[in-house]
């Protein structure tokens, strides 16, 4: 067990060490304080947080339905909600065009009636990120709901709590570790999103150019800067993930086996 885990850690650590090793430290500061980079970073953080929030808002109810309501075609719906994970990046963007673009199924009406256009706007970035990120939350939370013993929910119902109150006060806290994990997965996926974003939202500094897009462009002009920007992205998510202490990831387990076996 421990040997396999150690190998896995090594596997993740090596590329990072590699990046740090090859990073052009002497010029790093200049690259980082580049106006464009900072703008892209800010946009990336804002959009990925929005995408995470939307994923939680819509994804948790969806997970609950998949776990707890039995209806014909449930398996198909579950599969549908994971498709965006399999879509090659560009095709994801294309599919979003076909649905929400100016010529899209729904997008054309949004455009005609409300003069609303999602592509090439910051909202479009959020839509693209949500599209690829939400499945991670849905699947994680659904698994947790299934693992949950439904009897605590029964007890809550008999105490006069509605399904909704029960869900908020009993179910959600019980699956908090999974919810946190799912949200982190979704956030990370949104933060790293590239393909659907560049296709659907374009690459406009300040409105749609997120960090991965900036890294992509930096690579065209200055591969060194690309590495530095990627390291910045890594550092930020590292910071967020580390500060999301064990406590957030849930109860109990912390330190149960303090002796290594």
């Amino acid at each position: 067990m421990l040997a396999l885990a150690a190998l896995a850690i090594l596997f993740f650590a090596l590329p990072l060490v590699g990046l740090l090793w090859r990073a052009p430290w002497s010029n790093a500061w200049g690259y980082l304080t580049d106006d464009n980079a900072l703008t892209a970073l800010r946009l990336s953080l804002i959009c990925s947080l929005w995408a995470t929030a939307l994923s939680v808002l819509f994804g948790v109810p969806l997970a609950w339905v998949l776990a707890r309501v039995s209806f014909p075609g449930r398996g198909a719906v579950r599969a549908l909600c994971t498709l965006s994970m399999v879509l090659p990046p560009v095709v994801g963007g294309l599919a979003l065009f076909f649905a929400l673009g100016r010529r899209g199924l729904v997008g054309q009406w949004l455009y005609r009636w409300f003069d609303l256009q999602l592509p090439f706007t910051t909202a479009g970035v959020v839509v693209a990120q949500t599209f690829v990120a939400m499945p991670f939350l849905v699947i994680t939370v659904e698994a947790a709901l299934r693992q949950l013993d439904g009897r605590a929910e029964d007890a809550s119902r008999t105490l006069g709590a509605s399904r909704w109150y029960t869900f908020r006060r009993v179910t959600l806290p019980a699956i908090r570790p999974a919810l946190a994990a799912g949200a982190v997965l979704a956030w990370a996926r949104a933060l790293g999103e590239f393909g659907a974003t560049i296709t659907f939202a374009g690459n406009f500094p300040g409105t749609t150019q997120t960090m991965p897009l900036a890294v992509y462009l930096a690579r065209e002009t200055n591969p060194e800067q690309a590495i530095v920007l990627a390291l910045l992205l890594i550092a930020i998510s590292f910071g967020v993930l580390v500060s999301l202490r064990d406590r957030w990831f849930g109860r109990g387990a912390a330190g149960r086996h303090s002796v290594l076996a």
Partner: protein
Amino acid sequence: MSLAATLQLQLGSLDLQAELDVRPGELLALLGPNGAGKSTVLRCLAGLAPITAGRIAIDDIVVDEPATHSFVEPEHRSIGVVFQDYLLFEHMTVLENVAYGLRARRQPKATAHRVAREWMERVGLGEYCDQRPRALSGGQAQRAALARALATSPRVLLLDEPLAALDAGTRAGVRRDLRRHLQSFDGMRVMVTHDPVDAYALADRVAILDEGRIVQTGTLAEVTSHPRSRYVADLVGVNLVAGTVLDGVLHTDTGARVVIADAAPGASFAVIRPHSILLVQHPADGASARNQWPGVITELDRLGDRVRIGLDGAVPLTAEITIAALDAMELRPGDTVHASVKATDIEVYPA
């Protein structure tokens, strides 16, 4: 104005078909062997297990009737349930657990916590308010669950072995508290228990459930004086023989003949008390009013200065003799003896 239920439900190997009627202010104790379906009955009443046929009405309001597609969700039934394995919410403090029902009914937090704290004091857990359920011992958790269910003052209270995990000292106290609280409101209560003492102390009426059917109801005294099931007979410690009476003889289902004093013909039960059984090593030529059945000793069980002896034969029996008698006869498991009972010592009543 009562709880009236006709329950039908198929669940795994359980085939539940039971009828219950609890009047306001009444406490019905539900007794029966493990797996009889007692907990399932409570789940049906609570709305956690919808019945497949029948009807449940609380205060004349139908809450479950498949025939008319009526189903009232558990949270709208005004019930309180104390579950067999507590089911406290692990992520809340014990106080929050007890306050939960009131909070769910939109009571302000302060009120809910005050009421909950009173209940915590009442069940002797005052100092555990801010603990997590995990830090409670089994018995403490059971008491917290009790407080949680009682805090919402439900119309119907369903208790699944509420005292089972309590220690002897607390048990008497909680039983007393429980009775005091139960007397102070006019709702209906159904309590599952294994302990006849609980039933005696708390219940107005008992119902015996066996393999999904109610086999007997009445006061504890009525039920125990005329057992109608193996379970009740074991509870009271007597032998129960089922059969058909014809011409002063009870013909058992296994083909044995039990000579009885006098009884109306038809399907009947006969009760034979262990200490009215005489064991002899050689069959005696007795009067016809004496029953005499050979049996193999399967069990010897000492209880103080008496010994209970299990016999396997045409009429399986448990006899009770003194240690002195045992020593005199030098009985061992596997020996064959003859059990002899006077017809007048056998009580017979219609099934």
